[in-house]
């Protein structure tokens, strides 16, 4: 394990981690900006900075990928710590299914009342954000339901929370199938593209800024909870004996993770694997200490998703259309993760 001198001089170690992480992320961001697809029909890649209009579109997309990747990785660290379960990922609590129901409901409403909505300037304005708002509403609704169902004796209980999330996910699956029967055939493709996750050039700048603010706020809050999450890896009795207010800590960690996940679902749909493997990779390399993980994992998530999305963007002409980025995260991240798994010494 790499310790980066965290134990002797924690603040110095953290500063080094953040500086190295930020530098690497910036480098990868520049690289991703410079890469673009070749001419249609030619399996080539163009390298270099082109016209400002194209660069602006690229920047939007790469920045969205970085924000979503960082948010998912951070949410994964929080949820794995909260649930004391290294198999947890940001979607384990049914949040993505809630988002999908929101999008599905939006498709049903827009395909039924489309003309009436566009006639109203207010509603038409909301429509400009496409699936962002319905996905956000659906995810947040799912979080709220899971939060209230996941309590025992007035406090969040990790096992009850997990069960509530899994069951809610199943219920949402049923709802999606039900709503699907109400949609005209042509609109179904919208849902499919949402379910695979897609990072768009068309994300409004305001939405990106909001995403960045949510990410930074969540990051600060997560770091503040990190020490308590370490102690909560012990039994409940031991954690309470050491003065951790478990109920409060779990509530904050849950909401922090939920907002980060809901935000990333709203921006890009449920992109799989980033939130599961980035925390794992960091834990294997840097150990399980949560504050250290929280500082490093978001950079790893941002870099991973920027690279995956750039791959999708520049290889569009090879596959006769862009692949969903979730396909790449699973196909690249999965085998790499299995390789790390086969090399690890201690099963946690």
């Amino acid at each position, binding site marked *: 394990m790499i310790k980066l001198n965290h134990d002797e001089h*924690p*603040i110095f170690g953290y500063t080094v981690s953040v500086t190295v992480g930020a530098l690497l992320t910036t480098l990868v961001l520049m690289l991703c900006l410079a890469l673009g697809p070749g001419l249609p029909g030619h399996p080539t890649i163009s390298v270099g900075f082109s016209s400002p209009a194209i660069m602006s579109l690229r920047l939007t997309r790469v920045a969205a990928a970085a924000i979503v990747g960082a948010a998912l990785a951070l949410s994964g660290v929080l949820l794995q710590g909260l649930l004391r379960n290294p198999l947890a990922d940001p979607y384990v609590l049914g949040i993505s299914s809630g988002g999908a129901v929101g999008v599905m409901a939006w498709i049903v409403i827009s395909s039924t009342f489309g003309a009436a909505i566009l006639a109203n300037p207010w509603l038409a304005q909301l429509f400009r954000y496409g699936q962002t708002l319905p996905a956000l509403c659906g995810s947040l609704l799912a979080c709220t339901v899971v939060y209230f169902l996941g309590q025992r004796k007035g406090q969040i209980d990790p096992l009850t929370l997990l069960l509530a999330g899994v069951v809610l996910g199943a219920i949402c699956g049923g709802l999606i199938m039900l709503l699907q029967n109400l949609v005209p055939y042509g609109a179904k493709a919208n849902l499919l593209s949402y379910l695979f996750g897609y990072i768009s050039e068309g994300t409004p700048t305001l939405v990106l800024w909001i995403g960045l603010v949510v990410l930074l706020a969540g990051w600060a809050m997560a770091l503040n909870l990190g020490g308590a999450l370490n*102690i909560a890896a*012990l039994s409940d009795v*031991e954690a309470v*004996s*050491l003065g951790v207010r478990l109920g409060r800590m779990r509530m904050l960690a849950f909401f922090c993770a939920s907002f980060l996940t809901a935000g990333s679902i709203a921006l890009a749909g449920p992109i799989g694997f980033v939130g599961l493997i980035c925390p794992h990779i960091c834990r294997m390399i840097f150990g399980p200490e949560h*504050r250290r993980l929280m500082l490093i994992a978001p950079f790893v998530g941002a870099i991973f998703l920027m690279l995956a999305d750039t791959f999708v963007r520049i290889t569009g002409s090879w596959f006769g259309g862009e692949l969903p980025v979730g396909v790449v995260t699973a196909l690249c991240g999965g085998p790499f993760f299995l390789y790390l798994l086969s090399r690890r010494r*201690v099963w946690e």
Partner: protein
Amino acid sequence: MRPLPTADSLSLNMAVEDVSFGYGVQPVLRQVNAEFPSGQVTAVLGPNGSGKSTLMHILLGFLQPQAGVVRLGGRSLTQVPERRRASQIAFVPQAPTVGFAYTVEEIVLMGRWPRRGADGPLHAALGLTGADDRAAATQAMWDLDVHHLAGRAFGELSGGEQQRVTIARAVALDAPILLLDEVTASLDLWHQLEFLACLADLAHQRGRCVVWITHDLNQAHEYADRVVLMNAGQVVAQGAVKSVLVPEILEAVYRVKVDPAGKALRFLRKSPA
């Protein structure tokens, strides 16, 4: 294990007054009154299911009594803020559990969590331990003979080693009150005797209040100053060891017969060379 440095005399006592508790409708503790004075080792004895561990969970504030009061140095425990309570009461569980692959050093440092943030505002915001905490953790690892395991993952250790690491975590806090739930069960003989001597030292030399749940009556007889004997959720007898651990009481509580001519093997620490 090295002898503990004799320095401060942090002393604080605990007591429970008319404490009752139950899980659901099943009563576990019924109007329990007990005292745990500072400067003494109080052994809590009793058959399985007599409510010893529940009483300990109430003492450390994990469970709230349904009736009665827990007193920490004369104050009601409910009026003591969490962090203050945590820095005054150290606890060692029966079976330590750790969710991720933390190293021994990280686990022992967790014991200093109630005293976190002493090195400045950034340390406080991140809940970081400082130089004093690392020194205390290192000392505790030496005391419990686990310093050579500092970099190992907790999950890789044997049961006895894990137990010693958990005891080191409690010792590192240097709290006036030490609660121990059947901690000697998985220790080998040498470590048991060393640990019990260390326990007696903490109470007698440094004025700590030690509460020790055990099933080993012989060890309780040898190392404890006071005994609280429980049965079916009630305190049957409490007081000086010699007045409580007598055949009549033990035969009634444990449903056994004491052999008056019984000869048990008796072990002593080797005197240091």
